């Protein structure tokens, strides 16, 4: 994982998104301890303050919780919460991007739906 300096998304938010993705993929389980911010910062060669800010964001949102003197853990229900939010983001951003790109290429909305249906049929076959 390389944090993208050329993205308009601030690095600490990219850190939060990385954690969300790892939880969603099941690489970090609920009630499991997440890496310490120091460890994370050292591995990804990042200022610990930046890493901390990303982790804190998820604490505020209830995705992670702190155990005093031990570290941070993934909350129960975090995965569902992330999935829900990512779904909303997918509809808001990814679909918008798809439609913009389609417009640029002169593909109409109906054609996009057709393409998606075709894609799904093909995926169902394999």
């Amino acid at each position, binding site marked *: 994982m390389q*944090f993208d*300096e*050329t*993205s*308009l998304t*601030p*690095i*600490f938010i990219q850190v939060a998104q990385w954690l969300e993705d790892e939880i969603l993929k099941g690489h970090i389980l609920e009630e499991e301890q997440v890496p310490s911010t*120091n460890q994370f*910062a*050292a591995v*990804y*060669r*990042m*200022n*610990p*303050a*930046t890493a901390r800010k990303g982790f804190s964001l998820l604490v505020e949102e209830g995705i992670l919780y702190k155990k005093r003197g031990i570290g941070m853990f993934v909350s129960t229900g975090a995965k569902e919460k992330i999935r829900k939010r990512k779904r909303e983001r997918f509809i808001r951003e990814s679909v918008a991007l798809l439609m*913009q790109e389609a417009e640029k290429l002169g593909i109409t909305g109906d054609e996009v739906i057709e393409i998606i249906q075709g894609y799904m049929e093909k995926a169902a076959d394999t």
Partner: protein
Amino acid sequence: MKAIECKNISKRFADVQALDDVSFVMEAGGIYALLGRNGAGKTTLLNCICTRYVPDNGEVFLQEEPAVENPRVLGDICFMTEHIDEFDLYAVKRILKMAAAFYPKWDEARVEQLLTLFQIRRKDIYAALSKGRQAALGFIIGVCSGCSVVLFDEIYSGMDAVARKQMYELLLEEQERQPRTFVISTHLIEEMAGLFTDVVMLDRGSVILADDMETIHGRSYKCVGREEHKAHLEGKNILSVQTVGSVTEYMIYDDFAEEELLKLRKQGMSVTAMTLQELFIAYTAEPLQVTK
């Protein structure tokens, strides 16, 4: 607390104005990048901060006290460079003994571990060490000095990729273990960008940028489109323009509202963030006259 404050520092060598009215503040606990092209005044500035040089004008404050001849704050600052001539004739153990006597908060327990990590033996003569190991010894002294303010001048010079990686990790680890202020001059911007909390950029003796990394990332834009797109960027701080055929790339250091970005994209421009290295080049490079 302010770890370092420079107020209107100027320094001239013969006909070269090395520093010209330099003012900035560095807060305690940050890892500061000191960036600038060759001859921009980085080393002169570091020498002024630790009072090895006396500026022609202006004043330096360390931990909010005037620095000149102030033993309390000067015993609490360490300046290390890639190579130190005065060390040449001595064995490593002798150099470390001197450092231990000099720095009141010397961390002897840490020394052995770092020497092993960088494969330096106490019996080695400094001048006979490789360039990378000489630099590493400077890094070790800086870290083990226990000083609240540590200045490193191109300390990575000659280090191989593994040693540099170790150094970065140690730096971050140190900063967590015992927070202090690091000021690091570097040309390896791409490789080190993630380490820094703040940046001070010098160009021909003047400060051209002093911001924290988050602000910098939030204001660094690279907009790519056509020449006529320039109208949409009016009033923005355009640092450089580069054209490849009819494709034009604008490097901009400014604030953009969400709607402005949306509008630019609608007009067909692609907008990404410019990296710290790109920002540095856009700020300091002389426009190249390409002859056709």
